């Protein structure tokens, strides 16, 4: 009934050795399709994100949990002589609030892995909580998007990833949608990954892309 690319729990397979070997380092050569791994516990959201990505000409693998994602990437601790060099994932998009392993925990595990830490990770969440956003960006998330995710979000992310050939594109300042800001990122992304300073100041700085005219509504939950 649904398109065959959606990977359910029983259908996740590791690529065989005979597949094209290439080290996935997150950089994009430009000639192939972007392969995105999407992680979300909501069936509705999985369907939507899969469609958003496919319509944007991306190859998509969708899984329902952080542990499934790690399994897919080969990071689940299962000893394998093959290693994960045959997987080519260019982007990971994960929901934040998931039972078991949150998107934040998944992000940490990915950033701790030598094989996959270069892969950009985008966090999606319906919650506009500044401390949460802060934490994710500091941990190395490429972006934190407020749900619902739209075509324009996917297009923008795709442009950023595919344009990342060392030359940092000037990031647009945060778009306003309705009353609140929806997209958070720190530019340039290399700053996020190499940062050792404890607290990112979201106030005026050359690297901040948070719009200042409309501060997001601070929520005390979480």
């Amino acid at each position, binding site marked *: 009934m649904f398109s065959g690319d959606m990977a359910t729990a029983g259908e996740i397979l590791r690529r065989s050795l005979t597949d094209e070997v290439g080290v996935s380092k997150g950089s994009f050569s430009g000639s192939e399709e972007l392969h995105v791994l999407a992680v979300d516990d909501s069936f509705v959201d999985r369907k939507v994100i899969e469609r958003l990505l496919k319509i944007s000409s991306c190859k998509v693998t969708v899984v329902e949990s952080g542990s499934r994602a790690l399994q897919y990437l080969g990071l689940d601790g299962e000893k394998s002589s093959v290693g994960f060099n045959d997987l080519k994932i260019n982007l990971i998009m994960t929901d934040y609030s998931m039972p078991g392993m949150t998107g934040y925990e998944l992000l940490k595990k990915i950033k701790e892995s030598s094989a996959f830490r270069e892969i950009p990770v985008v966090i999606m969440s*319906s919650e506009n909580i500044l401390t949460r956003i802060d934490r994710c960006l500091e941990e190395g998330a490429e972006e934190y998007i407020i749900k619902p995710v739209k075509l324009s979000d996917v297009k923008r992310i795709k442009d950023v990833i595919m344009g990342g050939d060392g030359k940092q594109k000037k990031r647009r300042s945060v778009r306003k949608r309705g009353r609140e800001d929806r997209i958070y990122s720190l530019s340039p992304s290399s700053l996020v990954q190499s940062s050792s300073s404890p607290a990112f100041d979201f106030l005026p700085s050359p690297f901040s892309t948070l719009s200042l005219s409309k501060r997001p509504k601070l929520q005390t939950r979480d």
Partner: protein
Amino acid sequence: MLGWGVDRLRADMSRLLAILFHQGVLDEQFLQLQQLQDESSPNFVSEVVNIYFHESEKLLRNLRGLLLDREFSDYKKMGIHLNQFMGSSSSIGANRVRNVCVAFRAASEQNNRAGCLRALELLEHEYCYLKNKLHELFQMEQQRVLAAGARYPLQQQQQH
């Protein structure tokens, strides 16, 4: 006569959608879903919405089951269901349902059982309304597709 039906149906659908947007029942995210529908995925909207209905009814049953239990105290569990309901509603553009979930969650965080019961009633009402209207919309769409097929009999002849 059937050709006239297609235009009429299209106008009726537009009108219904306009009303639903005006009432805040649906928001722009629903339009986004429609943009994701094309020849390669011609039933995308109804597929997603049907998944949403299925999941929502499960969540509503869970919420009702929790609240009507005399010994109910697990507000945290209720919050989890509500977050799921909020998220999926927002993803399909079910704006009013989502807003009721927000209010419901607030009552739940205050351990306000009476407030939760009221919110549940309102939630079920809003959900019912949404479901009826979307069914109406999908029915009109089906009729429109059928009528459009009959409008061009030449194409059907080619099938013989």
